[in-house]
């Protein structure tokens, strides 16, 4: 198990989001976390990724307790070993596509020319040649999610956390993003935690769990 949540509880004010959620993710596995809106699936992802600290329960990553680490250590972990892709891409509009992709490398201390070279490789790989100098705020709905995906993968993370990565896309573009995501993850052995409410997106995963009322119910079928 590379990542594990045990009996995690988390409330926002008086509203409970997770009430004893447990899930385990294997090394190299692509796990889909499904469930209705407000079921707690994004909160679970944020707890697994060390963004939120649960009120109770434990999170383990690579054999070590994650939720008890101080924020600077969790922040370093997120930067160095995790990658993130969010629903609306959340690219920095003032930066170019290449700079957006390079951002996690720059934050990790990679020199700018080297970071931009790596970003250029990702642009080529995702069929975005020629768009590198475009500000991401000017990108259309087609390339923007691919730039967001490249940014999530650029550091070669051990775990990629993707929260509705195809949420705002049409079916065909969404599939292209998933093809790229799954292809890259398999190639590098990246573990993926994929939050989605869409069955067609979950079908790209090896396995799915459903979050309902803050608890995880595992389904029987696995690949």
């Amino acid at each position, binding site marked *: 198990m590379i990542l594990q949540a045990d009996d995690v509880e988390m409330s926002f004010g008086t509203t409970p989001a997770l009430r004893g959620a447990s899930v385990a993710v294997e090394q190299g596995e692509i796990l889909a976390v499904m469930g*209705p809106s407000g079921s707690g699936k994004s909160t679970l992802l944020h707890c697994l990724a060390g963004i939120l600290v649960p009120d109770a329960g434990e999170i383990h990553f690579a054999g070590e307790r994650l939720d008890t680490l101080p924020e600077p250590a969790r922040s370093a972990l997120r930067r160095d070993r995790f990658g993130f892709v969010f629903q609306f891409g959340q690219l920095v509009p003032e930066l170019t596509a290449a700079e957006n992709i390079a951002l996690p490398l720059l934050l990790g201390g990679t020199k700018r020319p080297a970071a931009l070279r790596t970003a250029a490789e990702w642009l080529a790989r995702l069929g975005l040649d020629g768009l590198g100098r475009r500000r991401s705020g000017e990108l259309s709905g087609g390339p923007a999610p691919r730039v967001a995906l490249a940014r999530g993968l650029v550091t070669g993370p051990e775990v990629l956390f993707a929260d509705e990565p195809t949420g705002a896309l049409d079916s065909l573009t969404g599939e292209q993003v998933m*093809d790229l995501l*799954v292809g890259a993850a398999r190639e590098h052995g990246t573990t993926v935690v994929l939050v989605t409410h*869409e*069955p*067609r997106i*979950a*079908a*790209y*995963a090896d396995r*799915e769990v*459903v979050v309902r009322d803050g608890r995880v*119910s595992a*389904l*029987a*079928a696995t*690949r």
Partner: protein
Amino acid sequence: MTVPLTLLGLLEREPSHGYDLKRDYDAWFGRGKPLPFGQVYATLGRLARDGKVIVGETEPGAGPDRKRYVITEQGVSEVETWLREPVEPEPHLQTVLFAKVVLALMSGRDAERYLDAQRAAHLQRMRELTELKRSGNSVDALLADHGLFHLEADLRWIELTSARLANLAAEVKS
């Protein structure tokens, strides 16, 4: 799949032997369910009887498959009509899913458990179809997509039904 009309459609391309029709049918439409030779020839026989194909001269040579079939104008017109008309939008599977949920609730069984099992089975099939899409050609993808969207529709229904189970149970038992 409507076998007679599909064979007619294949014949519209060019006159063919029964063997060629079977081979093309299996390649394009069989998808793991090959058409038995007996059914091919029985179907062609009926189509000939009804004037939709004519049987060409028996060609000299060995082997059983020496007849060439040619589509008639009536046959072409039939294919034309068939292709123009939309298929009855029948929710085939839903009737079974519906019956199982209602019967489970009526008998006080755990309908949620059944829906979970059904969801898992649907998602497993969707994974297989997604893999077929990723590894296959565009025709495979076309067929897989059709399956995927139908399964997804069922899943949406499963989700909604899961959310409504408590109310449904009260109603079904009253």
